[in-house]
């Protein structure tokens, strides 16, 4: 067993053991799906947008991955407060490996959460266009998960306690989510706002997921894939650098 593996396993065990939290975190995406999906559905249809559940489902899957991934990354702060962080920081293992292990673990957890939401959307009437597309969507789920877990870890490496937590939710997670095309199409937005959405990495994640699941992609699956993987790589590098510089 290597260090990366035990760090990964730890994240999974923690996830599995806090099933209450897991069920709780399903409530929000389901509420969004039901309230927005059925609420805006008829208007969306009248406006010529097609089936809103089909449009919305990939967006909500991306949302739940974004939230779970960021929170998993930010768990570094928890570890700092409960002291466990020290145990990993003095271990005779490169901190890059420690960071990579926990990021992979967090990303796996977030992908699993995305998978659960996908199953729920199927129950609510979402119909992916092809089986192959569903398989492809797993790739995008993991890429989104990896990018934002690493991002959360990077942010948390520079924070010392939970005070900043509401800031992160309100100034990072919420804008990322609302301006990603998860809830509405981006093509008819005013110029400045459109630019913001193009700079938002989650836009590529949502587009990639939607492309894989429904066959309709705006930016092109290749482009989505490329942006996510390159950014994911860069953010993981920055994250592990910041993580390696943590002082307790």
């Amino acid at each position, binding site marked *: 067993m290597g260090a990366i*593996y035990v760090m990964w396993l730890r994240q999974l065990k923690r996830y599995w053991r806090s099933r209450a939290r897991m069920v709780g975190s399903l409530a929000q995406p389901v509420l969004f799906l039901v309230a927005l999906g059925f609420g805006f559905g008829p208007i969306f249809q009248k406006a010529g947008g097609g089936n809103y559940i089909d449009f919305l489902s990939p967006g909500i899957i991306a949302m739940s991955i974004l939230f779970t991934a960021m929170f998993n990354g930010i768990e570094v702060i928890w570890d700092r407060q409960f*002291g466990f962080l020290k145990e990993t920081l003095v271990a*005779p293992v490169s901190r890059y490996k420690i960071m990579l292990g926990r990021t992979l673990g967090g990303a796996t957890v977030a992908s699993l959460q995305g998978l659960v939401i996908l199953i729920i959307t199927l129950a609510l009437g979402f119909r992916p266009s092809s089986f192959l597309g569903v398989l492809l969507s797993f790739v995008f789920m993991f890429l989104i998960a990896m990018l934002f877990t690493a991002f959360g870890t990077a942010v948390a490496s520079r924070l010392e306690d939970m005070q900043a937590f509401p800031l992160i939710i309100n100034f990072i997670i919420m804008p990322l989510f609302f301006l990603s095309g998860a809830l509405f199409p981006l093509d008819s937005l005013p110029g400045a706002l459109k630019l913001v959405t193009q700079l938002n990495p989650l836009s590529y994640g949502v587009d990639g997921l939607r492309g894989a699941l429904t066959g309709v992609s705006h930016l092109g699956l290749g482009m989505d894939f490329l942006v996510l993987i390159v950014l994911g790589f860069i953010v993981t590098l920055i994250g592990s650098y910041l993580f390696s510089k943590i002082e307790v």
Partner: protein
Amino acid sequence: MEDIIQVKNLIKKFQNLTAVDNISFSVKKGEVFSFLGPNGAGKTTTIKMLTTLLSPTSGEMLVNGFNPMHEKDSARHSFGIVFQDPSLDDELTAYENMEFHAVLYNVNEHLRKTRIEHLLKFVGLWERRNDQVKVFSGGMKRRLEIARGLVHHPKILFLDEPTIGLDPQTRNFLWRYIKELNKKEKMTVFLTTHYMEEAEKISDRVAVIDHGKIVAMGTPAELKKKTKSKTLEDAFLKLTGKIIREEEATAKDRMRIRGRAWGRR
């Protein structure tokens, strides 16, 4: 004998507090060396710097020949540490905490199993090994923490006030075990404690630190002679005075205060 820890003119300043004020000392290979000092004297800060958790403001350190600032990984390979404050994962079981540590410290599978069983039995937690740590009492957590610190046998073992909150049974076990490791494996032990009788019994040499400065250093016998005291406790009180110190803000308290400024440390 060669020095396994060398510290020269080490200084650590936090905003307006000098926690460690220009200290120099060395620890010989195979020695049991105690750092004694009142609350807030700078003991934990020194250990944190030696164990790569904190960077010094200035000064030089060598741990097993490596600079903890620049050769972090090699330095970390040389030591193990039992922290003063909790560092367990509450969501994992006692056994998993032990195993996690053993894997990180590269203890091979066979040794891992036998040592974990042996240690957990000794601290009386073997029956509870599959319980999550969050249901444990404070004393049980402390015992687990001690057991975990002994799963691997490093060249240097740091013990930061290891016996705080331990019952006499576990305390006895701990000192016996450490003495044995020290003899058999020539393991160097660097410890801090408030219990002077313990320090007197186990240490080859002690350093008394106060207000970030080393005020005396030598064998317990030397210190007693120097201060004309019967016990090390008396010697300690003569060296550091009887005034009760203000408790040093723990890392966590400092963290709470500074954490309010977002992203700054």
